[in-house]
């Protein structure tokens, strides 16, 4: 439980199991609500299993596309940055956090996350490497969606 940054946080397995069960129950009844999808995704991106994290990312991407609520969109963008950083997809992580910082330049929480991502990259020996790959390009579409919602 001794975390240095939010990126090191991992979901308690019991919490993860609980979130999954609740989400499955909701899905069985029809379309799950944005709130319960987010709760599920949030738990999944803290899993030690990379496949769970990826499943969480898929949920967050879907929420970002479908949820009209502006306040919620910033949550999804933030946690997409967290999730990608946790599986070391740093270019995507930086892409998402920059989208948030473009909209809220003074957001301390977002700035702290960006620093954490950069220090994780330094730790992995990635600073200075050319990391702008296909990932950042793939983001462009989502950035547009996020920017439109700001009006």
């Amino acid at each position, binding site marked *: 439980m001794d975390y240095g940054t939010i990126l090191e946080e991992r979901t308690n397995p019991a919490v993860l199991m609980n979130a999954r069960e609740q989400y499955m129950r909701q899905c069985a009844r029809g379309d799950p609500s944005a*709130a319960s999808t987010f709760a599920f995704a949030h738990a999944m991106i803290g899993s030690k299993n990379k496949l769970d994290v990826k499943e969480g990312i898929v949920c967050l991407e879907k929420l970002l596309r479908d949820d009209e*609520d502006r*306040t919620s969109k910033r*949550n999804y963008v933030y*946690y997409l940055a967290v999730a990608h950083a946790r599986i070391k997809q740093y270019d995507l992580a930086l892409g998402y956090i920059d989208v948030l910082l473009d909209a809220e330049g003074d957001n301390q929480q977002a700035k702290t996350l960006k620093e954490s991502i950069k220090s994780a990259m330094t730790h992995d020996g990635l600073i200075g490497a050319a990391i702008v790959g296909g990932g950042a390009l793939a983001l462009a579409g989502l950035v547009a969606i996020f920017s439109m919602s700001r009006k």
Partner: protein
Amino acid sequence: MTAAPYNYSYIFKYIIIGDMGVGKSCLLHQFTEKKFMADCPHTIGVEFGTRIIEVSGQKIKLQIWDTAGQERFRAVTRSYYRGAAGALMVYDITRRSTYNHLSSWLADAKSLTNPNTAIFLIGNKADLEDQRDVPYEEAKAFAEENGLTFLECSAKTGSNVEDAFLETAKQIYQNIQDGSLDLNAADTGVQPKQNLPRAAENNGKKDCNC
């Protein structure tokens, strides 16, 4: 940032809860950075802060989870109650509605934390005396009825902020000392240093502060 980061005896996990806009993040920021954030956007999900404090000569690392007050993310923030050694429940003394919602926050805190969790009631924005909407005595009585420790604070001036976080730690430490908090039980929100692999790893290495 410069202090030896793993030099402490315990980690205590805290959560900060309460309505949107009562100043939870500002309290955390004032406590960890000793600065006031004037224009603070709504917290995204759950934020995290740490600070090492000292109680009875023991260094303790506080790991503080600051939860978003927005109702729609309650499912996420609820998962953070589990295993909290301390809960700071915050309302805004200038907005009665935030005080009126305390019973629902308290019900959550009592049902989702363990019986030993130290729950501290904070009336924030005490610097705005001329806009006061909740009398001190009323909140004090509510706290006494519910067995909570209570202080009015100001994240803006910093008044009483240290005390709220430190008093909570003292209570938790006291519970450890008198045995009412069993460190071997699950989800106490307290972790002694001997169980910290990272702490052991760093011993003897990079610990020279002379």
